[in-house]
């Protein structure tokens, strides 16, 4: 009789542990999803800031059509991108178009003193930072989640509950690493 009770006790403990671990994994997975949507929010913010920026600069540097067009096209491509891989590449290209754009702006002193332009520059620089922090946070969450799924007692719960490893978000566009070239 005692043996039956002990067995029952052990089963209850195991079941409770299973439940707690499962819930913990659910929480981690939701954190990963939430972190992903953060990146999305910041990317959209960047897209929204760009038309304003172009209008401000057009007043001072009207003949830099080439640069404006490059940025506008890159932005359109980034907004149409589907899925993380495409988005990562398109955003990388947009980032490099923007840095070329700001390099050109260095040549116009009245533009550099314009308050609107400075505010927009700060906003865009900050948005770039926020994108990279959101990416960083997302990757941290993914790392935590993946480590948890792979560790020994937890991986049993993970395979039973159908938790799969999440993907890291790496912007691979080599163009992003180029230094902007200013042509004279």
């Amino acid at each position: 009789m005692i043996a039956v009770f002990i067995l029952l006790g052990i089963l209850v403990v195991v079941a409770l542990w299973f439940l707690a671990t499962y819930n913990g994994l659910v929480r981690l997975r939701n954190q990963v999803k939430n972190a992903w949507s953060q990146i999305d929010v910041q990317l959209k913010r960047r897209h929204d800031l760009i038309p304003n920026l172009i209008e401000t600069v057009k007043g001072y540097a009207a003949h830099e059509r080439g640069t404006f067009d490059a940025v506008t096209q890159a932005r359109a491509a980034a907004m149409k991108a589907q899925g993380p891989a495409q988005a990562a590449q398109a955003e990388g290209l947009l980032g490099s178009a923007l840095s070329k754009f700001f390099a050109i702006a260095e040549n116009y002193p009245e533009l550099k003193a314009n308050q609107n332009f400075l505010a927009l520059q700060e906003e865009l620089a900050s948005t770039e930072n926020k994108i990279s922090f959101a990416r960083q946070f997302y990757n941290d969450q993914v790392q935590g989640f993946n480590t948890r799924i792979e560790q020994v007692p937890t991986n049993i719960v993970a395979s039973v509950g159908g938790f799969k490893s999440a993907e890291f978000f790496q912007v691979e566009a080599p163009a992003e690493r180029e230094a902007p070239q200013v042509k004279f």
Partner: protein
Amino acid sequence: MWDLIQSNKRKSALLIALLALVLLALGYAIAASVSPSAGPLGLIAALLVWTIMVFASVAGGEQILLASAGARELKREDAPQLFNVVEEMKIASGLPAMPRVYLIDHPAPNAFAVGLTPQRAAVAVTTGLLARLNRDELQGVVAHELGHIANRDTLFMTLAGVTVGAVILLADFYLRGMRFVGRGRRSSKGGGQAVVIMMLVALVLAILAPILAQLLYFACSRRREYLADASAAQFTRYPEGLAGALERIAGLPANRLEVSRALAPMFTVNPLEASRVTSSVFSTHPPTADRVRILRGMAGSSIAAYEAAFRAAHGNRGVLRPGELKGSAEAGIRAAAPGAPAAAAGPARQMREAQDVLHKLNGFAVIPCACGLKIKVPAGFGPSTVTCPRCGTSHVIPAAGG
């Protein structure tokens, strides 16, 4: 990161329990020394005092602390760069809601964070901080403060501070009361040995308990500062930012920020202890030089890298428990951010910009004159026009808007 927060919560609960135990023991001993059967009554009384103080600090504590430091709440338009930095760190730290941002008008650079839960947090910086730090350093300081919020330090330190305060209050009360009550009691009560023993116990506790409680409080406080530094390095991926900021904050002893002793421990660098080289057992913060050395010795940006640097600087004693290192992400160090054009223009310009934030807050109208001067007109200025002191042009003062 998550493991760190969980372990912090557990330790916080344990330490608050310990401190509360000290308080209750004191209450019991004091009451029992007066009359042996009154022991439990003293326990309940101590518990009551503690509960009231905790409620008071939880309910209104934040606002009182912010007001006592002279902090004014900022809107995004008043200081866009500061708001951006706070928002960036909010994203990096994973806080659920954007903290409120406050400004303290003082030339000494410093910052602090309050907030019982990450949902209701607030960060305050001084104008001196805005004027002296570049963007990376400002980011480091804000990351350190948000690290405190994310690690639930603000909640814990508030509770611990209240408990220590209650212990000191009770002990003080008893020791003073002894003088009046002592003579009479000894002759009137026939309780004999038990009462005398309890009196001795109560006396010993009344002397030791405040010291014990303070030691516990300061030890936790120092450890949490190290942990907040580690969190800041991980959030910013740039330990040099915080290191440089700490040097600037601590290196100006002449500009001591005069704040109440209750508020001082919550600042990035304790303003009342800023120039101390060594840390005594009674310091709320570790010595700044030590913190800077550890940050500069980090090989990466992860919590594990901070732990390694800490061990290197402290003869293999660590600051983290093994459980807290689990799941710590491998992280490299990023490059320094390019200086914004304004900051590159010089410290005087940066100081003026920091003052401009304050002017906007105070409802000043800022009128740019063609000669380059920015005329600042206080709210409630009588005439409707003002002449530029440099070139004499007359300007119409815009009507006060939203």
